[in-house]
């Protein structure tokens, strides 16, 4: 269409149409005379419209250089059945319909997505391009999926995320692996460290720390004094990985930091190094408070003399002077000292006894609870299997009368310090003795899939709960865990439980059929997991 200097014939037509032919005479077009002005206008407009559409030409491409193609992804292609499975899992991700008490007999696909992603990443598969948008959407809604989803999405996923503001999250944090320079390219590392955004720098430090812990520390040292306090805290936190005695001088210096949070974190890290000077100072302080009572000639007992003051040196070593409301300050200080002292100090201090013997000793003046709780925190922090074992006690002992702690959260931290199979047997025995009502958090720290004795104990406990006549949703947490963590090989043994038993006299009405439904779902989920894993190993 040609344009005149002022307006085109089409623009003239639009102007006349807008104002009305009564107010503005339309330009004369190729219409025979004798027609009404509006009709002549419509004729001309129709001609223009069809002519313009019929004469449509391609647009010219948008300016600028063509976009960089997505980087190559050398991982293996996903087997076709596994790809179909993923599409199915993603299609279900919007959440189970009606997530009320009753969940039906079919697997909850959303809950299997994390497992599927972890397995696919372990096999080193490449995400099919067509599922990337669904994957990025899923991980946007569920932060717990992000690390696995983004690893699976790979370089093409990041390439895509850059084009859509809704997927910006993918470019944040330590997940931008591909954007980081190689950790051994000293020049590029230094440049990014000095010029990069905060998130990039954290990611760089983390990557470098994993590759060469000393180099990461050195890099951090170059700019430490000029960093902002909250950044120092984050950088310090990333030293947690690969912590070793070599970090001590740096951490010791950070104990004099201007920021209290930085000081506290440095102290915490140092206390996890049993050979550090701080650990030694803490050991001396703690040891001076706790001793064997030699006065009486009855059985040995521990006496505690809590600290009378929190001096400047203690504060510099990370002891917080002011207790939370409701706690006495002396017991508050004691708890912190014992928690930060290396556990290795106690056998020597307490008459050459083992951890188990020490934990079994009576403690004078009601200090037992305070002291044991502090030892629990120390065992968890120092990941000490001996002490954890001693503080957990035998699984059959009721939690309220045992040593250490009654809190399931604390106990699960102690369990985490035990080797996998020992942990599984401990929890199995615990469940056999006490049932499932307090087992949820303990199960959460067990390795997946559950070892055979553990799986058996859970299934037996569920069967007992059913026979006791309660409703299955009282155990929905454990059921959900079992669906995800039981070994798929248990499916056969569970089959007999899917039948609907006759309602017993003392059972809740209809409980039998609900249990049958719950067990069917458990079995079908286990079968699906087996199929899922088989599809991925094809």
């Amino acid at each position, binding site marked *: 269409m040609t344009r005149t200097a002022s307006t085109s014939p089409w623009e003239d*037509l*639009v102007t006349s*149409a*807008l*104002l*009305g*032919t*009564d107010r503005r005479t339309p330009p004369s077009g190729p219409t025979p005379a004798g027609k009404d*002005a*509006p*009709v002549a206008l*419509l*004729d001309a*407009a*129709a001609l*223009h*419209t*069809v002519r*313009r*559409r*019929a004469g*449509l*030409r*391609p*647009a*010219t*491409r*948008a300016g600028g250089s*063509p976009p960089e*193609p*997505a980087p190559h992804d050398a991982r293996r292609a996903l087997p076709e*059945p596994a790809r*179909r499975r993923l599409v*199915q899992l993603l*299609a*279900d991700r919007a959440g*189970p*319909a009606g997530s009320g008490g009753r969940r*039906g*007999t*079919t*697997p909850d*696909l959303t809950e299997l997505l994390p497992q599927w992603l972890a397995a696919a990443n372990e096999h080193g598969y490449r995400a099919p*391009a*067509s599922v*990337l*948008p*669904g994957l990025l*959407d899923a991980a946007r809604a569920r932060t717990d999926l992000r690390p696995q989803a983004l690893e699976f999405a790979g370089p093409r996923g990041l*390439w*895509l995320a850059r*084009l*859509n503001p809704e997927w910006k999250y993918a470019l944040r944090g330590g997940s931008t692996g591909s954007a980081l320079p190689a950790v051994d390219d000293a020049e590029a590392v230094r440049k990014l460290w000095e010029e990069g955004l905060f998130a990039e720098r954290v990611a760089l430090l983390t990557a470098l720390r994993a590759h060469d812990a000393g180099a990461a520390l050195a890099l951090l040292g170059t700019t430490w004094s000029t960093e902002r306090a909250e950044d120092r805290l984050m950088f310090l936190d990333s030293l947690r990985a690969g912590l070793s005695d070599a970090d001590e001088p740096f951490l010791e210096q950070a104990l004099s930091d201007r920021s209290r949070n930085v000081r506290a974190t440095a102290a915490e890290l140092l206390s996890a190094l049993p050979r550090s000077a701080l650990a030694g100072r803490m050991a001396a302080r703690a040891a001076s408070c706790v001793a064997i009572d030699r006065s009486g000639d009855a059985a040995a007992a521990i006496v505690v003399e809590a600290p009378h003051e929190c001096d400047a040196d203690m504060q510099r070593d990370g002891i917080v002077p002011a207790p939370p409301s409701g706690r006495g300050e002396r017991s508050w200080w004691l708890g912190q000292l014992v928690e930060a002292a290396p556990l290795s100090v106690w056998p020597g201090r307490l008459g050459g006894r083992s951890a188990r013997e020490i934990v079994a000793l009576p403690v004078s003046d009601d200090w037992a609870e305070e002291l044991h709780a502090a030892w629990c925190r120390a065992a968890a922090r120092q990941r000490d299997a001996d002490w954890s074992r001693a503080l957990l006690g035998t699984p059959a002992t009721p939690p309220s009368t045992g040593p250490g702690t009654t809190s399931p959260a604390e106990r699960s931290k102690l369990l985490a310090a035990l080797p996998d199979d020992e942990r599984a047997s401990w929890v199995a025995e615990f469940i056999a003795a006490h049932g499932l009502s307090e087992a949820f958090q303990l199960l959460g720290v067990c390795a997946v899939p559950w070892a055979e004795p553990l799986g058996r104990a859970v299934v037996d406990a569920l069967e007992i709960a059913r026979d006791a006549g309660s409703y299955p949703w009282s155990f929905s947490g454990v059921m959900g865990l079992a669906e995800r963590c039981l070994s798929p090989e248990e499916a056969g043994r569970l089959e007999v439980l899917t039948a609907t038993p006759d309602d017993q006299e003392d059972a809740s009405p209809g409980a039998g059929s609900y249990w049958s*439904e719950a067990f*069917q779902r458990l*079995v*079908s989920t286990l*079968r*699906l997991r087996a*199929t899922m894993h088989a599809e991925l190993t094809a």
Partner: protein
Amino acid sequence: MLLTNGETASGALAQGPRWATEQVLSLAPDDASRKAGSKLGAAGPWSTAGCDASGAVWGLCKGSGSRPYQTVVDTTGPAYKCSCPSRKFPCKHALGLLLLWASDERSVRAGDAVPDWAEEWLSGRRARAAGQDRAAAGSGTSARSADPEAAGRRAERRAERITAGATELEQRLADLLRGGLAAAEQSGYGLWEETAARMVDAQAPGLAARVRELGAIPGSGPGWPVRLLEECSLIHLLDSAWLGRERLPEPLAATVRTRVGLSSSADGSAVRDRWLVLAQYDSSDSKLTTRRIWLYGRESQRAALLLSFGAAGRPPRLALPVGLMLDAEVTAHTGSGPRAELGEQFTPPVAIDAPPPGGPCASAADTYGQALRADPWLDSWPVTLSGVIPVRDGEGWQLVDADGGDALSVAPAVLARPGLWKLVALAGGRPVTVFGEFGHRGFVPLTVWPADMSETVPLI
């Protein structure tokens, strides 16, 4: 799902291919069914599941009741039968069964004998289908010959009504232009709704639909006067064409009749071909769900559009999974552009072997321009682009020729759809083959094949 070697393809033909999960999910009437069906797509609740070479799939699904549901699917239709009380179609059991069939060859084994309860429905359905074909062949002529005079009189009366309606509409358009479109911005929908109702009374649903759409244009953003004038002028063109239809060449007159709203019939000759199912999508208004299925004939090298309808909220019955190739007869409508009806299918469908031949961006514009000669009211035309790259263009997207400076803008309506991102992801900044509709509003991508042609991916 493209089969590239002959051995696999013939093997698939003998067994009947299992569909991809996406193909099954594309049959779901709504999101809720899709989710419910996905949950049933695992071996757990199913027993006695099997399939055979004729395209039948069956299984027993344990539900909440004591008796399992009996579910049968004839994948050649596809058609579904389930003993559950659901009014969804296909129901979640049928979807779950198909998903299981698609993904788990051990749970849905091929070659088992068809159980009696399934066989009963399958043979009944096939007998009915054959009977309907015969009846259709017979009744087509009998209805016409029943009382040709009465039918002729009815047609004449309707034509008179439409003529009166078209004349009235011309008058209203002239009044509008006389007073100016600016006034239309204030009058809102009311004016157009009333005029549309008049066109319904005049038995011209085609005119009524166009008039109703005018109501949405004022206030549809910058440039609305241009769009309103364009659409008014095309209605005027249709009015004038109807009023002067005796002077038009027959094919154009047939197009005008269909555009005004007279129903067309599939009275072309049946073409047997290998038809690729390229796209399927639904649009709905308050009364009706319209499903469009694009086919492409491998030998005849033409596109065909299958339309099917469902009451509001109900999915239409015809559903064909994208990515399959049917050996079937297709009969074109007269005066309805590419519209056609699907006739007999001769063998179970197979996966398509290659995308339809495509061209650069310029060819799409040419094709649309050519198509307007036969039907100036066309908003878009089916085209296949090959060697194009999706590229960001400000807020929007373009498809750009990999070698050359031409580009097509993606239609604004597409920008919010998830399918666009699938296209971008699959291309990864490299050339792909895309099927879609191109018209004056831009390009609507419907299906994409990545560079290695490894799969057919629907974008809608």
